[in-house]
């Protein structure tokens, strides 16, 4: 565990915390409002929890929204089996610490057909292990509302996403047939089998996420902070070389360097960046001068422009 995380935990008693600036406060208020509205209007909500920084913020806001009560819905982690080991350790600790209900789902086809990011290619792998797995888990739980941490600034097709995003019984998203969304009045009326994905972080940007993590001392996976780590270079990405399942291809060599991750997903598909940012301050100042977007490290977005929209139509979050 990195020093930063321990430091953040040590400071996590909120008593002496300065008040949030009006910008973050407005975003927080909006998110809490959405959490409460969904929890009140739907019968079986669930929160998608991916362990990343956005999920960490989402969870923190959920705890705030329902305080002094418990978070009144379970967390769903769609696991691919290829997450960074540190993510899983972090997840288990958080669930225990905050007394949360966690549901973990892995697509059984993954093991049965030996689906891996190496053998099936990133597009096919993501389709089976993430999109299909998510549909299975949502069907199994009969959830009528699922919270997600998606932000509109992440990707072009997200810019038109509603805060309540309506989905058909087979989880499809029809970008041409979305309900108008006015003021902060959300239409939660659905028929049985239909569902809504709710996005409390819609109006947050990446910088807001980091500034909020800092202001609220929210624990995050240490992989976000720069550390000397082993990696290999593949397809122009730096892949973390810690997992024994990563086989080196001819010409690849393990190297070591000061690296960190801007987003976290499946380790073979997530590229690191070279960075000396070891504190939240460093990360924020690095971000403010960054010239590439955070999704640049994600292999799945690069298949082709518009690929996220395709995945969303098929039920990807």
């Amino acid at each position, binding site marked *: 565990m990195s020093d930063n995380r321990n430091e953040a935990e040590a400071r996590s008693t*909120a*008593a002496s*915390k300065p008040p949030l*600036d*009006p*910008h973050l*406060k*407005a*975003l*927080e*208020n909006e998110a*809490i*409002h959405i959490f*409460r*509205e969904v*929890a*009140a209007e739907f019968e079986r909500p669930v929160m998608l929890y991916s362990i990343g920084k956005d999920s960490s913020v989402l969870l923190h806001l959920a*705890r*705030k*929204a*329902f*305080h*002094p*009560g*418990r978070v009144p819905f379970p967390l769903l982690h769609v696991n691919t089996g290829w997450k960074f080991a540190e993510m899983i350790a972090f997840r288990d600790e958080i669930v225990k610490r905050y007394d949360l209900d966690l549901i973990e789902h892995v697509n059984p086809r993954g093991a049965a057909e030996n689906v891996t990011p190496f053998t099936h290619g990133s597009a096919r792998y993501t389709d089976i292990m993430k999109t299909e797995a998510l549909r299975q888990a949502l069907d199994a739980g009969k959830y009528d509302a699922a919270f997600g941490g998606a932000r*509109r*600034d992440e*990707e*072009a*097709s*997200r*810019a*038109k996403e509603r805060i309540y995003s309506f989905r058909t019984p087979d989880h499809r998203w029809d*970008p*041409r047939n*979305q*309900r*108008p*969304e*006015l*003021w*902060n*009045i959300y*239409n939660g*009326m*659905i028929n049985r089998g239909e569902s809504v994905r709710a996005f409390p972080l*819609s*109006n947050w*940007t990446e*910088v*807001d996420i980091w500034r909020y993590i800092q202001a609220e001392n929210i624990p995050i996976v240490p992989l976000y902070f720069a550390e000397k780590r082993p990696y290999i270079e593949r397809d122009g990405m730096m892949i973390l070389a810690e997992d024994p399942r990563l086989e080196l291809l001819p010409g690849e060599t393990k190297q070591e360097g000061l690296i960190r991750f801007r987003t976290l997903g499946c380790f073979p598909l997530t590229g690191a960046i070279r960075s000396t940012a070891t504190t939240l301050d460093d990360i924020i100042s690095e971000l403010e001068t*960054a*010239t*590439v*977007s955070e999704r*640049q490290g994600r292999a799945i977005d690069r298949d082709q*422009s*518009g690929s996220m*929209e*395709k995945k969303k139509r098929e039920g990807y979050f």
Partner: protein
Amino acid sequence: MTASATATVAAFPAVETERASRDSRPLRLITCGSVDDGKSTLIGRLLWDTKAVKEDQAATLQRDSSGKQNDLGLPDFALLLDGLQAEREQGITIDVAYRYFSTDRRSFIVADTPGHEQYTRNMATGASTADLAVLLVDARTGILEQTRRHATIATLMGIRQFVLAVNKIDLTGYDRARFEEISHEFKELALSLGVKQITAIPVSALKGENVVYDGRASMPWYEGPTLVETLEKATVRSNQTVGFRLPVQRVSRPGESFRGYQGTVAGGAVKPGDSVVVLPSGMVANVKQIVTFDLVRNAAVAGDAITLVLDRQVDVSRGDMIVSIDSQPMTGRKFDAQIVAMQPEGIEPGKRYWLKSGSRRQRVTVAPASQLDLKSGKWNAAEALPMNAIGKVALTFDEQAIFDTYEQNRTTGAFILIDPDTHNTIAGGMITGRHSELGGIHKGDERVILSLPADLADKLMATEIFASRRHDAEVRHTNAGRAAELLADLDE
């Protein structure tokens, strides 16, 4: 118009512009204009020059646009903005998209809406949350009927700050007289709608002049602010100066000892000890505690998401509203409202819809009375409202309803209508008052004709009194001699 090249035509400096700083809430704005006005280029330019677009996104753009660049070697901004494949194929923007950018002083949320006529509903959606509207015109064509339509919709949705971006000014050879002519015409239009804060800016979105960076090199005659400077100084509307309102979203009962009412303060402020009324029951109680995750607070204001604890057992459930005892909202079963119809089936008179306002959902029938003709600005009698129509309606509820006027409170005066068959949102609406059988321009009640100097009439129409009843007044411009003749005719 005066010879001043500073086209900041804020007619009334009465509303204090707060000192912009990073310590302010995000400014929400809407951009209105047609494809031809260069709206995508303007927004693209804003994102580009504030560095909200990163290199890899631009690289994707350049790959997509396959050489489609403008003559300055920049990528085709429209591709960056039109995020959905369906739209790219059709080459038009068909929905509301939200964009984010920030400067050192403030962050901004832009609702980017299409300018095409049939998409009134999208503009209304984008305008519902906006504090300010940027209206875009082509300097060569000037104010169009469309500009008038957009300004009217923005005003109806409660926007009271306009920025006119006179784009493509480079194509007029930076013609100052042309700019002033357009600004003047727009000022008259805005004032006739009651909008007081107006800034007109000559802009070249393509060249990046007066958007983020100033255009002094090309337009030394313009000494006013750039678009971004104007946005940095704009005011964010809040409901803090009106009576306390807490629409109850849910009741929190984690144990026998605690009972808290959770919701977002929709107006005014509250502190422990305040006397409050629970509506619609009318039960009275005092505030015992304001609970939040961080600490027990000694006050909460409009916008805060809180948990309120009262000093006694009262029956409160989701959909109720907790309000200050000395400044209560209207309650009743009949209200007047203005609505925007948003679905192909329109609004059917006599049909029972669901109405949702705050956390309260109830049955309502809607009786259309008139429809706004966006060309003339006149309200014509109507019995049904088709998609994209803006209408005045009477609402009749099965049970007590609770509202403020939209003019007084943009949260407790707003609602949506939901079709019980399709569950779709079919209209957005704004409460104008308790239902009155009289009133309106087509009714036979008594009227007064006034003849005033034009500037005085403009000022009068821009006051708060007229803000909610503007459409009850008819204004005609003429000269003093003709006015005297007209009045003389009436005396005969």
